[in-house]
């Protein structure tokens, strides 16, 4: 929890000023019973009207001063706590941006969202409370104890006993409730995971008429969350009554022993009243403290969840001295003896070697799960090869800076996803500050001009999050335009024409071939038609490279490729290609 204190650094002023003001306010508050006792003992007993009035005025003045200090404190608290939360969220977001896909999968998006909102909100609240109360409450308690010592040492011993007993109770309750609060946040993750799944799979759930079962699945998670919240609540709700009992016992003791001392004449009635008032003050403060304990216990749980994210180290990091210049003369992409496996699974790629020269078009074809996407994911270094090396323009990708490496690669992912904004803002993801001409050109290459121009707002038409307001094929073409506008040295099309009809697909390939003069293009596809005119075709089967060559070479030499061709082309066509 204290590790997160660094995000409070720039709020040092507020952190000091806030509690200080609260402290002064507390001192003023603490003096009130003293003044009261004075009024009774000196004013009333002596019948001194002036004394009563002047001290009454003093009390009012102290109140006004207290108000001023309290305002400063509240202001500091709001600035520091919200500022802290904002900084923490920013830092967390930045950190998440450095994590690779493997780590993000492990934590899960739903959990990241709850950690970033709900957990940080709890920490924010704790900071506000820290400033407002953490100094004030103990101060009031300790101050009350000190004052009691000043009044009568023997009676003050009662305070000295009550305080540690209360502290012990606080500690025990807190310790007992921590696991439950941890459970609450975990339950929250689960609830948000299921809700997120529902929202993304809403159509499927309805298609299978599973609304009822789905509600039950949620109800389970919801019930678990409620249950654990209630259990935690039951424990923490003990705090208030227990501390109340201790305080009342102390008050009884004060009056009982106090009256003994009154009898002997060591203590006045006014002093007993003052002591009782101090004890009441402590008791009232204890109510606040028990609230605080709950807030801090929950914050501690949230802090550990937030720290868990910060402790997750990115699996793929830039090397210490990354290079960002490339050798134009070296082959664009070269795999030598690359083997790769996902964590906890068998190899997804085994001993892959090939070279792609500048300006070449490389087709990648193979069965489902053959490792096609995995292979292209190694080029921009989304994953690191387990064995062997991947080089881009003569540089081992592990030595390159991310921005230089990824800056020269344009990717069209399999899943066509856009960001909320406009068509223009989405293309600007590929090339910041792109001109209208560049946008028009990219759209025309991607065969997207027609439908974009038909939209009422043209380039400035709104795209909703994920691009859900567009059809699958429209989205896919926009993702292609986004990669093309970048004018990358290496263009990766990861089965990115799957939602396009053949005519559009063919037109796209024609347009691309004009575009790609010096570009090295990787085309992952299921369609022979898409890859057959590539300079080289890589045939993958269960993670192994079983064929490398042109269409005509492979159709003769590679049985797997031939089989794929036969499944798609007319037999005569295949045989014709074989002959030449």
């Amino acid at each position, binding site marked *: 929890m204290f590790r997160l204190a660094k995000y409070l650094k720039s709020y040092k002023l507020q952190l000091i000023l806030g509690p200080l003001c609260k402290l002064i306010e507390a001192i003023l508050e603490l003096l009130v019973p003293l003044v009261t006792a004075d009024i009774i003992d000196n004013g009333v007993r002596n019948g001194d009207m002036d004394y009563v009035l002047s001290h009454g005025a003093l009390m009012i003045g102290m109140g006004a001063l207290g108000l001023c200090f309290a305002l400063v404190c509240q202001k500091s608290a709001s600035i520091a706590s919200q500022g802290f939360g904002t900084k923490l969220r920013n830092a967390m977001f930045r950190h998440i941006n450095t994590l690779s896909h493997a780590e993000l999968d492990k934590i899960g998006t739903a959990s990241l969202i709850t950690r970033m909102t709900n957990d940080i909100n709890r920490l924010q609240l704790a900071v506000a409370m820290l400033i407002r109360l953490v100094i004030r409450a103990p101060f009031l308690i300790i101050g009350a104890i000190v004052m009691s010592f000043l009044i009568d040492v023997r009676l003050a011993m009662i305070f000295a006993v009550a305080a540690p007993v209360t502290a012990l109770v606080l500690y025990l309750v807190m310790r007992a409730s921590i696991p439950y609060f941890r459970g609450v946040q975990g339950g929250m993750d689960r609830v948000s995971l299921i809700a997120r799944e529902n929202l993304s799979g809403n159509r499927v759930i309805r298609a299978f008429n599973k609304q009822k079962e789905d509600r039950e699945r949620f109800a389970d998670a919801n019930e678990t969350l409620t249950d654990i919240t209630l259990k935690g609540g039951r424990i923490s709700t003990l705090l208030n009554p227990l501390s109340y009992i201790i305080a009342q016992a102390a008050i009884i003791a004060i009056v009982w022993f106090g009256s003994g001392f009154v009898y002997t004449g060591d203590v006045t009635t006014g002093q007993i009243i003052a002591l*009782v008032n101090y004890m009441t003050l402590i008791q009232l403060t204890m109510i606040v403290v028990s609230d605080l304990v709950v807030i801090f216990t929950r914050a501690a749980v949230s802090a550990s969840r937030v720290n868990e994210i910060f402790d997750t180290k990115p699996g793929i990091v830039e090397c210490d001295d990354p290079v960002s210049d490339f050798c134009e003369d070296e082959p664009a992409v070269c795999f030598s003896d690359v083997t790769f496996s996902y964590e906890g699974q068998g190899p997804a790629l085994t001993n892959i070697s090939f070279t792609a020269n500048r300006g070449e078009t490389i087709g990648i074809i193979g069965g489902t799960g053959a490792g096609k996407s995995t292979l292209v994911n190694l080029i921009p270094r989304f994953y690191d090869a387990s064995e062997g090396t991947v080089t881009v323009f003569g540089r081992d990708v592990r030595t390159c800076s991310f921005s230089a490496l990824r800056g020269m690669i344009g990717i069209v992912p399999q899943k066509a996803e856009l960001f909320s904004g406009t068509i223009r803002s989405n293309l600007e993801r590929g090339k910041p500050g792109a001109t209208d001409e560049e946008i028009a050109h990219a759209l025309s290459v991607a065969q997207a001009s027609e439908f974009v121009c038909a939209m009422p707002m043209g380039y400035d038409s709104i795209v909703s999050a994920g691009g859900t307001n567009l059809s699958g094929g429209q989205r896919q073409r926009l993702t292609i335009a986004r990669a093309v506008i970048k004018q990358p040295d290496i263009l990766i099309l990861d089965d990115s024409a799957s939602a396009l009809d053949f005519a559009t697909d063919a037109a796209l390939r024609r347009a691309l071939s004009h575009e790609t003069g010096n570009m090295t293009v990787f085309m992952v596809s299921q369609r022979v038609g898409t890859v057959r005119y590539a300079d080289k075709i890589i045939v993958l089967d269960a993670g192994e490279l079983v064929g490398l060559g042109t269409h005509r070479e492979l159709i003769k030499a590679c049985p797997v490729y031939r089989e794929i061709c036969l499944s798609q082309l007319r037999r005569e066509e295949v045989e014709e290609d074989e002959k030449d």
Partner: protein
Amino acid sequence: MKKTEKKTSAVKTIKRIIGYCKPYKLRLAAAMVFSVLYVAMNLTAPVLLGYAIDGAVGKGNVDFVSIASLLLMVGVSALCSALFVWLMNLCTYSVTYLTARDMRRDIYGKFGSVPLSVIDSSSHGDMLSRLINDVDSVSDGLLHGITQLFSGLVMILSTLGFMLVISPTIALVVVVITPLSMFVAAFITRLSQKQFREQSQTQGELSSRIEEYIGRQKLVKAFSFEKSSIESFEEINERLKVCGQKSQFYSSLANPSTRFVNGLVTAAVCIVGSLSAMSGAISVGQIATFITYANQYTKPFNEVTGVIPQLQAALAGAERVFAVLDEQDESSEDDCAVIEGKSSGSLDISHVSFSYIPERPLITDFTLKVAPGRRVAIVGPTGCGKTTFINLLMRFYDINSGAILLDGKSIFDIKRSSVRSQYGMVLQESWLYNASVRDNIAYGKPEATLDEVIAAARKAHIHHFIERLPQGYDTIISEQGGNLSQGQRQLLCIARVMLCDPPMLILDEATSSIDTRTEIKIQRAFTEMMKGRTSFIVAHRLSTIKEADIILVMKNGNIIEQGSHDELMAQNGFYRELYSSQFAPS
């Protein structure tokens, strides 16, 4: 005018929150009873203490016997008071958290009952924020509201009563001054409610941004726009900070201000009390009691104003929660029929028009008759309305005009669930959920045995892959499908439908990510399964289309050509153009 409107909306929101507590009214009533008892006990103690202190008059003049018995009573009342406050809290906790649970349940229920268009057009991150953060705010507010607000009110009223009995004059002083603190608190609350609303909204915006950027991290990395995504996130975060600071500061003003007013009260009590004591109207012990009372009396004011920020946040959260709950459900279907058993699969679509946005007609005057058992393939350029057509068949969206008849009966007279259960559907976007592989395949038929599941997986040619997974069929599929490839996910979705054995089938680009050899085998399995049943296939691959009984060629929401493959080729039209493009050189 505007102010009163806002006020009534706040009152309405509060009323609805209270309405939500209704199922737990017994517990709520118990909480209130305990709260009254607690207050009563809490008030008795100072009276008894006052008397006890009065027993110690001065040196050599102390009535130990009466003090002892009074203190004993104080002890008993303290124990009772602690017990009651505990019971009160227990009741409050369960009312609060059960109410929050119900709210979450109802919001989630809405996800399934609103028209699909609402889900399609809403930001998922914002919805999640409503479900998690806004409900959390409401429950936080409710917790403090019930405990502090109600017991505070009881405390105020009963202390007032006690004071009136002891000394009407002093009580009067207290009564005159305190409304001031109420006034101050009300003023500040009104000032800051707008900020809370804004805060809640911005929080929703923030979480939709998180959902968007973190859910698509790979894309963010691919385009190296970590930086710009961070900038856009930080911009929203900054706005959240500003409105957060404002709302927090303004609403936290209420507490010190009321405490100041209460300080005035204490001073006044002290002065007036002392003056009365000097004139002999009350005893010194009574002053002590009085000051304790004045403290007791003002304490609830402090507590009430202390929880104002939570209450305001709760109100803002509740507004957003209720906005979801107020979404119109899909039209009622009480009078709708249920299809008994399996339909024959005859479809009659006549003059159907539909558009997502009224200004942009998509499907116009669409007419089609499908005899039972036919295989219908739909082809056409992207965006021509293929998927929309399927949305209409499944009643995900309702048509604007025209009619769709299933076995001669309008699908609007049949329950949605009944219409949908006639179809097995595989979509391009393969959706799996966080459960075992087996559960995912058995999604449409949870009672299926493992053998049936395996048989379906075999038909979908995914069995061997599943067997190689660390825990086989019991492997848990992580959020978003984890490390499965797109094609493998699609195969699992196909297995899911294979297991259901539906009377009709819809394949919307269902095999787009699967290699053609596997696809052909799957196609064979589908053909086997669908013998004599109606199916709709949206696809680009000719292998899939060629064998269909009818091919519909769609363009701009209309059917422009239809017929068998050979017929269409002979027509030498748009289809032929599409077909030949497959082999066009790149």
